């Protein structure tokens, strides 16, 4: 085989962002490393993957069957890699295959077979497979016409979730509390689905949502790259959830029960490459349900790659051309193989970035339809510090956990804000804890796991003490140790100044406080993300800052 055609994901839209440039670029590099000539088609010029240095020949043409066929006719590729261009790339590859274009030109689909992709994406086929391998799926109904929809309006348990099949990022889905909403949302979903197919399923609102990024090669070797726990319980699209890696509140048995299920699924589907498995986990028992499988490289896999250092897209591309996990090297350590499971020695927090600052009138509620345009990730040795980094990295008005809107909200309003997922719920939750409602009550309202709430409570506690100390003008607790504590938990100088209320305060107290902040300021060291928690020597200059004693970045710099 000589030439491989890679289909990109096209323009950035909600649900399909820069992650596919990252994945596509890695894939092109990996395929060329393996000696293939890479032809690429993508309509988005603002990408590294469409650089002439990335692929051997680049077509910036519309992503439709017409132009793809013309590219195929011109380039006569031997293989087509469909799983790295998001849903766009996958849908297009499906159309090319079903339309006979691939057969006509003798193009082989690489990686996961199309039948497996269809089995993962078609709800009915997927459920049948899950039943075969005895993995639990929530009760659900597949609806393909308004008549069928009408027929089940009285049988379905409410609230229920509506998910259209074959759309980008869950477009057109929603939650219905009653039959009227189910009717309206269901009809819309039928129209939006490429196959006029929607699934209605039992709502698992309040259950934990956990994801596993798994990989499989053609020999059947299966590994987990990363698991992730959503801060937001079930009901919010994972692209709109605050996500933490690795999972924090699963015991070893629970972790491996879900890992085993995920690997069983990827095996049963026969995926060759990366795959994302989403699971709902009962917070009060060992029950779980398999929610969804993404049989391709996705936004979650970009996050998992950055969270662990494991290059999922690169390895997926190599698997697609027949390499096996035990042959591919671990690029990060340079000394081990890609067939292993990354061990993290830090905590990762992702927060989505929503466009509501631009669209103040948009509906800010979050459910199964993704609304975020992007995301930030933060790494630190504690959850608190990682969360604070992520918050201030969002580049929104809130640089910490204080939000005037919620600070000035009455209790009833705040209760509703905590209970309803929106882009600002984190701040509502923090305000509830700030008002002393306690972890139990906020958990009851939000269903956010108490572990997260404890940590936020910890941050809010420091924040309250800083605000108090500012009001008492230094008369209260010892300012030096409080400031030192604030630094350690992850408040930067700017936040400490703001919370003490001394940003532009040149009174004697203001000056003392600011001088104290300078004095107590701790310089971070920079630790390496090395996929192996320090077990093997690594040369990868990928760092995050933290307050510890030893500096990996300095060491590596000296060594090279």
């Amino acid at each position, binding site marked *: 085989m000589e030439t491989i055609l890679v289909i990109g994901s096209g323009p950035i839209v909600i649900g399909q962002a820069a992650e596919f440039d990252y994945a596509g670029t890695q894939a092109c590099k990996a395929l060329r490393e393996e000696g293939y000539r890479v032809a690429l088609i993508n309509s988005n010029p603002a990408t590294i993957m469409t650089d002439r240095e990335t692929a051997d020949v680049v077509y910036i043409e519309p992503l439709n069957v017409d132009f793809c066929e013309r590219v195929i006719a011109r380039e006569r590729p031997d293989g087509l890699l469909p799983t790295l261009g998001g849903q766009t790339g996958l849908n297009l590859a499906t159309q090319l295959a079903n339309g006979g274009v691939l057969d006509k030109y003798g193009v082989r689909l690489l990686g996961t077979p199309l039948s497996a992709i269809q089995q993962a994406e078609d709800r009915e086929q997927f459920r049948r497979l899950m039943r075969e391998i005895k993995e639990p799926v929530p009760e659900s109904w597949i609806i393909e016409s308004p008549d069928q929809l009408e027929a089940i309006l009285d049988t379905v348990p409410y609230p229920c979730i509506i998910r259209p099949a074959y759309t980008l990022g869950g477009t057109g889905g929603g939650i219905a509390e009653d039959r009227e909403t189910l009717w309206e949302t269901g009809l819309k979903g039928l129209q939006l689905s490429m196959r006029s197919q929607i699934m209605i399923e039992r709502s698992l609102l309040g259950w934990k949502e956990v994801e596993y990024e798994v990989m499989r090669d053609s*020999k*059947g*070797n*299966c*590994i*987990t790259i990363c698991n992730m726990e959503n801060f937001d319980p079930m009901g919010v699209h994972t692209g709109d959830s605050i996500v933490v890696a*690795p*999972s*924090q*509140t*699963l*015991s*070893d*048995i*629970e*972790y*491996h029960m879900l*890992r*085993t299920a995920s*690997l069983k699924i990827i095996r049963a589907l026969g995926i060759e490459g990366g795959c994302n498995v989403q699971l709902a986990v009962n*917070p*009060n*028992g060992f029950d779980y349900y398999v929610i969804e499988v993404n049989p391709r490289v996705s936004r979650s896999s970009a996050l998992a790659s950055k969270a662990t250092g494991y290059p999922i897209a690169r390895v997926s591309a190599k698997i697609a051309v027949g390499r096996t*996990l*035990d042959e591919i090297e671990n690029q990060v350590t340079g*000394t*081990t*193989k890609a*067939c*292993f*499971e*990354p*061990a*993290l*020695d*830090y*905590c990762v927090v992702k927060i989505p970035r929503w466009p509501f600052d631009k669209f103040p009138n948009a509906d800010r509620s979050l459910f199964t339809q993704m609304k975020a345009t992007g995301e930030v990730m933060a790494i630190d*040795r*504690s*959850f608190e510090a990682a969360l604070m980094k992520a918050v201030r990295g969002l580049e929104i008005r809130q640089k910490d956990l204080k939000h005037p809107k919620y600070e000035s909200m009455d209790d009833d309003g705040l209760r509703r804000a905590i209970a309803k997922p929106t882009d600002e719920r984190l701040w509502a939750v923090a305000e509830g804890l700030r008002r002393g409602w306690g*972890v139990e009550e906020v958990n009851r309202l939000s269903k956010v*796991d*108490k*572990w997260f709430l*404890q940590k936020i409570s910890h941050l809010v506690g420091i924040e309250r003490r800083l605000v108090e100390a500012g009001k008492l003008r230094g008369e209260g607790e010892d300012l030096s140790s409080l400031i030192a504590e604030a630094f350690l938990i992850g408040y930067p100088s700017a936040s400490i100044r703001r919370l003490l209320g001394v940003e532009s305060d040149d009174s004697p107290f203001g000056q003392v406080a600011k001088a104290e902040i300078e004095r107590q300021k701790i310089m971070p060291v920079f*630790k390496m993300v090395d996929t*192996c*928690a*320090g*077990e*093997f*020597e690594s040369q990868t200059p990928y760092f995050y800052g933290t307050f*510890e*004693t*030893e500096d*990996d970045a300095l060491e590596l710099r000296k060594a090279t």
Partner: protein
Amino acid sequence: MLSDGAVYAGRPLGAAGETTGEVVFNTGMTGYQEILTDPSYAGQIVLLTYPLIGNYGINDDDFESDRLQPAGLIVREACDLPSNWRSTRTLHQLLAERGMVGIQGLDTRAITKRIRSGGVTMGIITHGDPDEALLRLRGTQVYGESDFVYSVTTKAPYAWGYAGKEGIEESSEGYRFRLAVLDCGLKHNILRRFAALNVRSIVLPAATPAEEVLAWNPDGILLSPGPGDPSRLEPVIEAVRHLLGQKPVFGICLGNQLLCHALGGRTFKLKFGHRGSNHPVKDLEDGTVTITSQNHGYAVDPDSLAGTGAVITQLNLNDGTVEGIRAAGVRASSIQYHPEAAPGPWDSRKYFLQFVEQMAGG
């Protein structure tokens, strides 16, 4: 403090006091409760590389033995307010109750890297004067010269069946097989897995002579995991040597090393061992790779197996060390990792079934 005098300051965790042991690290991100009750950690101070430990608390079910086994515990941050439906107490409470000394709030990655480059070393957790502590540390017997197996093994035989631990005299009716287990530092989950396959285990002290083992008329013999240098366990090796060929034998971890010695091979100490839930092992027979749970500081010397009748069946994909051997002539096989998981991946459970099938073959 490590034996080279390196000092890491932290805050106390668990029981007050001082402890010494061989400092080892484990890279698993879950499983602290299982690790803390795994007898193979006897004599060792365990450092957990994942920084947030204790998040899901301690429950009543996930104990792998009846007591806490390591000499001490090192973590970056111990969670005081855990969250999990099964949690009954915190990590700190468990350690304090059971008298284990721990430390938290130090740069665990720095210590890990030191062990990675310098090899495992003795260490002390103390609140006293560093110079004096170093003297005490240097006066402690080093790990490799201690015999831990005899202190962690069961004092008297007992049985394990469907309902868990039970008296040896109880009936074996309703079970498919009877397994004799030489307990060098057994984890409960090994017994649970066999029970799930209708096998009743007779757990015997490590130093039980061969004829006493055979007197139980077992269908097979399991060589359990355990702590320390296998070459020091001559009486056990001797017993295994006599058992070989009599009954099907399966070894796990230390059991793998004991089988190697019994066949006439040798073992050696690894620089910093394998401890974690992510170790890839390649099966040389079918070419597949499995992610395994590991906890060992010694390994089988492959060259020493020449002429013993044993073949290497599995290798570690990271460093090429021996992960499994088989001596078909004497119906014995073993693996260096933990098919019982607890903690770690469940991908190797098939070995229990395989051994049961072997017992069926007589």
